[in-house]
């Protein structure tokens, strides 16, 4: 909780602690030049465009198709990672098994590995000559250069969000309630459904929305495996790049502004949901 200190204390602070002007000045200058100025330029460009032109660009069939592909693939990746993240976090927090530390370290690989490298690695695995590609083609399943490839790449890059947001909460759970339920005859699934899940729910929502936001903007990992066919496997980020190469700044800005707004909207909603859930839990016990 933050209080705004009365002026007297603030002045006293300043006389004891040095460096207020220097550090705040540097921070504000940096934030203004590196973060705020570029972002406001995007809004300025959108303002220049006007709503009619913006709408025309956004409702262009190719743009709409790109949004459909991006959002649907991101949604699948998010649902998968939310569930998979829950499982991984549970296994890491609760069980002991050989190789656990390796598994724990592996989860962060998608954050450490450059996205372009992840992209060509996935292609190497899933194209016609790749290990997985050959295996799956026997069953008539094609992943590389299809919508499924896009979803797979997005899944890879957003794995850590699903796990790392839920894990600390699971670690902090006390076992009392679970043990009480078990002695009263609840099954493992009932314990999970009624005791564990409600407690991790706020962070579960947060992790899922971070994963979704990341997947919306993912570029490097996706473009290698996507096939990049307009109307079919073209993602929004790629379309921004294409418009930029054509020096069509207004169109690029319109698509970029929409992607940005969507990501921020998801995160804001998640924050609200998280706060609500937390308040509800503390009230309801």
């Amino acid at each position: 909780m933050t209080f705004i200190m009365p002026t007297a204390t603030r002045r006293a602070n300043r006389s004891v602690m040095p460096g207020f002007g220097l550090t705040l000045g540097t921070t504000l200058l940096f934030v203004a030049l590196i973060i705020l100025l570029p972002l406001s330029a995007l809004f300025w460009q959108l303002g220049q465009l006007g709503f009619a032109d913006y709408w025309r660009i956004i409702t262009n069939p190719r743009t709409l198709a790109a949004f459909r592909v991006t959002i649907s693939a991101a949604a699948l990746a998010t649902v998968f990672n939310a569930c998979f993240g829950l499982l991984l976090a549970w296994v890491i927090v609760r069980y002991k098994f050989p190789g656990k530390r390796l598994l724990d370290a592996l989860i962060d690989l998608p954050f450490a590995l450059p996205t372009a490298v992840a992209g060509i690695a996935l292609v190497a695995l899933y194209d016609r000559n790749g290990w997985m590609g050959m295996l799956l083609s026997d069953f008539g399943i094609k992943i590389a250069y299809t919508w499924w490839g896009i979803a797979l790449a997005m899944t890879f890059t957003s794995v850590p969000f699903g796990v790392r947001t839920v894990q600390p909460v699971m670690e902090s759970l006390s076992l009392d309630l679970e043990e009480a339920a078990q002695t009263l005859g609840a099954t493992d699934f009932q314990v999970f459904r009624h005791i564990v899940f409600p407690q991790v729910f706020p962070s579960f929502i947060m992790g899922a929305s971070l994963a979704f936001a990341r997947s919306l903007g993912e570029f490097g990992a996706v473009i290698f495996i996507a096939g990049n066919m307009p109307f079919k496997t073209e993602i929004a980020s790629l379309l921004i790049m294409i418009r930029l190469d054509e020096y069509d700044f207004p169109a690029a800005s319109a698509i970029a502004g929409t992607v940005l707004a969507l990501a921020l909207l998801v995160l804001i909603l998640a924050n609200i949901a998280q706060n609500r859930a937390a308040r509800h839990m503390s009230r309801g016990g």
Partner: protein
Amino acid sequence: MVHPQVKALRRRRSLKRAALVLVAVAFAALIMGLPSVAIFARAFSEGIGVYASGLLEPETLHAIKLTVITALIALPVNIAFGICAAWAVTRFRFPGRRVLITIIELPFSISPIVAGLCYLLVYGSTGLVGSYADQYGIQLMFNLTGIVLVSLFVTCPFVAREVIPLMEVAGRDQEEAALTLGANGWQTFLHVTLPNIRWALLYGAILANARVIGEFGAVSVVSGNIRGETMTLPLQVQLLYDDYNVTGAFAAATILTVIAVITLILRSAIESRHPQAH
């Protein structure tokens, strides 16, 4: 003596656990382990000689050099900014403090392509700042400056995010004691604050370093993609791949993979020795 029913219950439970662990490990191996193995398998598929010559191509070497230079510039700036931001935000209370923290975290939620586009709009030759610089013959985009600038954008939250919570929790008492004993600001920072935050600082710097080296989307927008000149290592991977020089692309990718693995090892080493750094 354990009751046979309890025994059976225990066995069933441990079977269930083993099954869950197995599913989790199998998924993790399939989704994250296998791709990293595939990179090395592909890179060495034509023998170590081809691998080495792929790495020693002048364009790839130039890309490595450019990537290292970018990291050498971006990282110190990032650390300095992280410290300044943490000091200002945790040692003082001022209106807009919360907003400032939120803004610092903002780059994490912005798509790299969108970030690159924003930079073109401001610092490109027709942009707000860019057109002004252009009059003096200074080009800010499509060269090292542009690459460093977007790298600063995508990595600016890393150090600050690690240091701020730590300094918040540590409080001001120690620093205030040093100051009342007559130390000046710099002495206080060097001898009191810095030792306390050094692991968090290192932790953030390692993650930021991995991101600077691996950034692809934002850099590809502002680098101009000039062959042999403004290609960082990840861009070079793409260039080689598009040229059908697949072995060369995977050879370059192995360097990046090794850096990623080293990052993870350093990170978990710091985490296990200095849990408060996380």
